[in-house]
């Protein structure tokens, strides 16, 4: 950066915190009609018939539409596109998600009937008049019953409920390593099913514009992902579809694809000739937002007598719910993280997607990365316990040193840089690891059990690994004294607007309030990554840096024209283009004025960036907890992170991302869980009364230190930060709980480590001892 401007806080906060944000629910349009969807009350049933007569006659109702109407209008199902094989070696059954269920429903909450009315209340009231005759079918309530012999099939075409299988690595090599190993430890564990709980629920407003184009204002994190899907369903060219994402209040991967409701509002808008909006109620969010995680892990780690790791094998069964799409494959793309920050000579892993009568699952902050880190980091703790080696020491013994960089893990990933031992020693110091035993003793005096958990996460960012996604941006400098930036990545609340505006302001030498930030409009750029995969800074920010270079280059050409010089002789600094060695200069905005007179485009520049490869943020988490053995109550007393996210562009925003990430991981470890009834596959945790969302007092102050090891993959040196907090915190927290309980002989506890579960584990351990 040429210059540093004092950071004065997030630009968007005042707007967002005072109710002036522009979310889908805030839009006011003339003749706006309102949509409500009647959802399946069964997890698995045939639809015999649907009677909509009474609903159609209800006050204010404009349309009552079913899957048959969709079919009549030629609108198909959301695409699947998965090419992986099933268990029989044949290509995966294209288990596509319908926009409205036709003859069969496959989860509780599936859209069956669309109602559009003059008001939301009228639409909802009419919904109660719809009569659907169901023939209930046996439900596949979870992964274990799905795989049992004689289980009902979610899809008749897939009798064993295995949607896809994927394998990598050589099993024989692992078997040999294990046979010669001094120790083999095994982890069988379930990473629970959770839901994103975005503060802004999903929502979409569809309209047909004057040119007959399909325009959708959507609460989405991926406008450019959504466009081809919608264009395909409506059988129009992509240029005939415009996606507009305004402010988005949280997404976490959950809002990265097109949902049935997005299609419905556009379809209804087309049929009615009126704009139509649907906003999710919170209870609908629980049922119908794509769920996250739900991965059953069976993994083994082989070590020699000195604790050197010889091999790792992992099997991952993912409960993908009832429909299949590219979004169901999150565990595969990011699985490379199971190699951790360690030298592991042989790694073999397999992933299976399992159909159940639950809502479809999809990427959720970390998307396979926390699961992978959880597997390796729990295994190391289990091994340390078994071998009576300090878990910290066992990790140190196996680290990949900086001298080994770039390091090929042998399992997909090639780490470009990282100083893992530095992370660990830094965290140990910051967490006062040396004083832990004294603190443990002090807790014991108060009748409490104290534990310390470590995790060394490393995750892929700015991917996918095979071919990182490209981002685009453009800049317009206007003679009115403003600079407008369009970005292909987007903020969903993290402060990207601020981070990007400062990048522009610093580089162009203008004050931040002169920068206008625009995102989420598919008309403005050729493409864009949207939000996801920790790529906003490392890819999107780096793309903006390129666009800034192009802006300055363009400005030098125009300035050269103005100053009657050669572009090469023009220097740019502090918002001025100057002829080298003279005091003849023009300002950025004078250049814009000149350009605007000369041509219609004015002073504009564009840029694109496709990273040559991915980046690997990494770090060390240390979680310290205290348990009340009489009640099982758990308190997180310290949380420390040393995180290498490469060059830190904005420390405040980076810390904010780490805080939020840790909160999400810790919450899953100690309380969040979606539970489906084992018989009926009804969601029994369908509201905030039953689903734990952490409160401020559930979380400690988080002690963060960043340790910058810049990457060379992009010009900023940034590695990405969005997922870092979550990737490490699942493992660190569960490791801490297990450490606290280890004096009682407890080696493992499943998440969520709720008081009841901890209490039960303690009871069982005491009974076992007594027996």
């Amino acid at each position, binding site marked *: 950066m040429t210059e540093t401007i004092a950071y004065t806080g997030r630009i968007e906060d005042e707007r967002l915190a005072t109710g002036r944000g522009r979310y889908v629910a805030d839009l006011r349009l003339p003749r706006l009609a309102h949509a409500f969807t009647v959802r399946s009350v069964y997890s698995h049933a045939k639809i015999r018939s649907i009677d909509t007569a009474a609903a159609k006659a209800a006050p204010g109702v404009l349309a009552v539409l079913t899957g048959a109407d969709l079919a009549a209008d030629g609108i198909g199902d959301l695409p699947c596109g998965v090419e992986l094989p099933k268990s029989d070696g044949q290509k995966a059954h294209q288990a596509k998600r319908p926009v409205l269920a036709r003859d069969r429903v496959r989860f509780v909450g599936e859209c069956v009937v669309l109602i559009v009315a003059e008001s939301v209340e009228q639409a909802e009231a009419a919904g109660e008049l719809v009569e659907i005759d169901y023939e209930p079918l046996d439900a596949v309530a979870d992964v274990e019953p799905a795989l049992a012999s004689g289980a009902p099939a979610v899809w008749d075409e897939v009798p064993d409920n295995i949607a896809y299988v994927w394998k990598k690595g050589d099993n024989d090599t692992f078997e040999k390593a294990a046979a010669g190993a001094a120790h083999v430890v095994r982890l069988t564990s379930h990473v629970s099913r959770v839901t994103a709980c975005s503060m802004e629920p999903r929502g979409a407003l569809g309209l047909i514009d004057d040119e007959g184009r399909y325009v959708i204002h959507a609460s989405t994190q991926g406008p450019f992902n959504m466009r081809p899907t919608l264009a395909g369903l409506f059988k129009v060219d992509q240029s005939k579809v415009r996606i507009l994402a305004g402010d988005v209040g949280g997404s976490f991967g959950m809002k990265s694809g097109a949902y049935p409701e997005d299609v419905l509002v556009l379809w209804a808008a087309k049929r009615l000739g009126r704009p139509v909006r649907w906003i999710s109620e919170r209870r609908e969010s629980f049922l119908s937002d794509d769920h996250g995680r739900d991965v059953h892990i069976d993994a083994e780690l082989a070590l020699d007598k000195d604790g050197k790791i010889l091999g790792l094998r992992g099997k991952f069964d993912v409960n993908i719910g009832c429909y299949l799409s590219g979004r169901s494959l999150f565990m595969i793309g990011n699985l490379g993280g199971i190699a951790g920050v360690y030298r592991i000579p042989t790694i073999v892993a397999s992933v299976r997607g399992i159909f159940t009568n639950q809502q479809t699952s999809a990427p959720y902050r970390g998307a396979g990365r926390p699961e992978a880190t959880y597997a390796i980091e729990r295994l190391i703790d289990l091994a340390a316990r078994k071998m009576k080696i300090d878990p910290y020491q066992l990790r140190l013994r196996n680290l990949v040193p900086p001298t080994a960089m770039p390091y090929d893990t042998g399992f997909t990933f090639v780490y470009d840089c990282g100083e893992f031992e530095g992370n660990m020693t830094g965290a140990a110091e910051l967490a006062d690891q040396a004083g832990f035993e004294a603190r443990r003793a002090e807790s014991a005096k108060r009748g409490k059990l104290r534990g310390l958990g470590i995790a060394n996460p490393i995750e892929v960012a700015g991917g996918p690994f095979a071919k990182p996604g490209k981002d685009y941006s453009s800049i317009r400098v206007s003679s009115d004294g403003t600079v407008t930036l369009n970005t292909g990545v987007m903020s969903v609340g993290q402060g990207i607007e601020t981070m990007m505006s400062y990048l522009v302001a610093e580089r162009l030498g203008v004050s931040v309030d002169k920068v206008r930030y625009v995102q989420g409009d598919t008309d403005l750029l050729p493409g864009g990554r949207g939000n996801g995969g920790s790529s906003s800074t490392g890819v999107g920010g780096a793309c903006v840096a390129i666009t800034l270079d192009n802006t300055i280059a363009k400005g030098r050409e125009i300035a050269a024209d103005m100053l009657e010089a050669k572009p090469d002789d023009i220097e740019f600094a502090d918002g001025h283009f100057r002829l080298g060695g003279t005091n003849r200069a023009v300002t950025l905005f004078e250049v814009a004025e000149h350009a605007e007179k000369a041509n219609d485009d004015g002073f504009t520049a564009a840029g694109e960036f496709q990273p040559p490869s991915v980046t690997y943020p990494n770090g060390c988490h240390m979680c310290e907890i205290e348990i009340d053995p*009489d*009640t*099982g*109550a*758990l308190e997180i007393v310290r949380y420390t992170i040393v995180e290498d996210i490469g060059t830190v562009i904005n420390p405040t925003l980076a810390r904010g991302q780490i805080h939020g990430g840790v909160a999400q991981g810790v919450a899953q470890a*100690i*309380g969040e*869980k979606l*539970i489906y009834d084992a018989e009926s596959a009804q969601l*029994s*945790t369908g509201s*905030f*009364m*039953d*689903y*734990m*969302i952490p409160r401020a007092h*559930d979380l400690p102050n988080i002690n963060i230190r960043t340790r910058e090891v810049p990457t060379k993959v992009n010009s900023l040196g940034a590695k990405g930060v969005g997922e870092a907090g979550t990737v490490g915190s699942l493992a660190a927290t569960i490791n801490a709980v297990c450490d606290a309980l280890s004096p009682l002989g407890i080696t493992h506890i499943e998440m*969520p480590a*709720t*008081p*009841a579960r901890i*209490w*039960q584990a303690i*009871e069982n351990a005491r009974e076992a001892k007594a027996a």
Partner: protein
Amino acid sequence: MRYEKPTTVEAATALLAGQGARVLAGGTDLLVQMRSRVLSPDVLVDIKGIDATRKITKDASGYTIGAAVTGAELKEHPTLSKDWPGLVEAANLIGSTQVQGRCSLGGNLCNGSPAADSVPGMIAAGAVATIAGPKGTRTLPVEDIMLAPRKLALTAGEFIVSFKIPARPAHGGDAYLRFIPRTEMDIAVVGCGVALALDAGGTCTAARVSLGAVAARPLLVEDGAKALIGTKVDDAALAKLEAAVRAACKPIDDKRGTVEFRIDVAGTLAKRTAKIALERARKV
């Protein structure tokens, strides 16, 4: 639906005697239930216009607390928190700051949840409700009001005007603790209120022990009180209290915690609550 805000007890009981009428106090339960269509009353009788439901008075015999006084107002009262800290803490556990500005003791009790936080606090303190009805006014101890979930001992047209809390004994103390598992937000898995009085020598002369959320209604645990009375509230007495509390629990086994877990935590919580009440009694 009709909204009425009478200013006298008589006008309120007359309205409440009508079909489909319902008391509105803070509305933090009722409005939520109406929005989610659990209840749809024909007439909402807002009792906050009646002076007696909205004020706290103190005399030699104790406090009279209006049934619609809010949690925040209980806390702000100059002496109530000093005399009955357990009761105020129990009421202040309800919801968040926003909810505290609305929620009332009357609403908490009459909503009819076995897990209502302030109820064991009131029962331990020996609170007695003043109930107005078409036939006049009567009193009933708080532990006799809720019979089963959503079922109260109030008859048509009746509502609670206020609660009488006795004066704190010379060496008296009370406390309330609740235990919430993390899997859910607001409902106590166990709530325990203890009030006790000591003589000058530190022997317990009177005690009341109450439990919430471990049975179909909040409980007054007489055996728990007996375990403490006549003792110095030492470890042996606390062990007896724990046993009495465990014996009194009849929890439902649902996803909020298994039966054994609830019983066990109730016993532990009772001991801890009694210790706090004891500390407080010793200090005054």
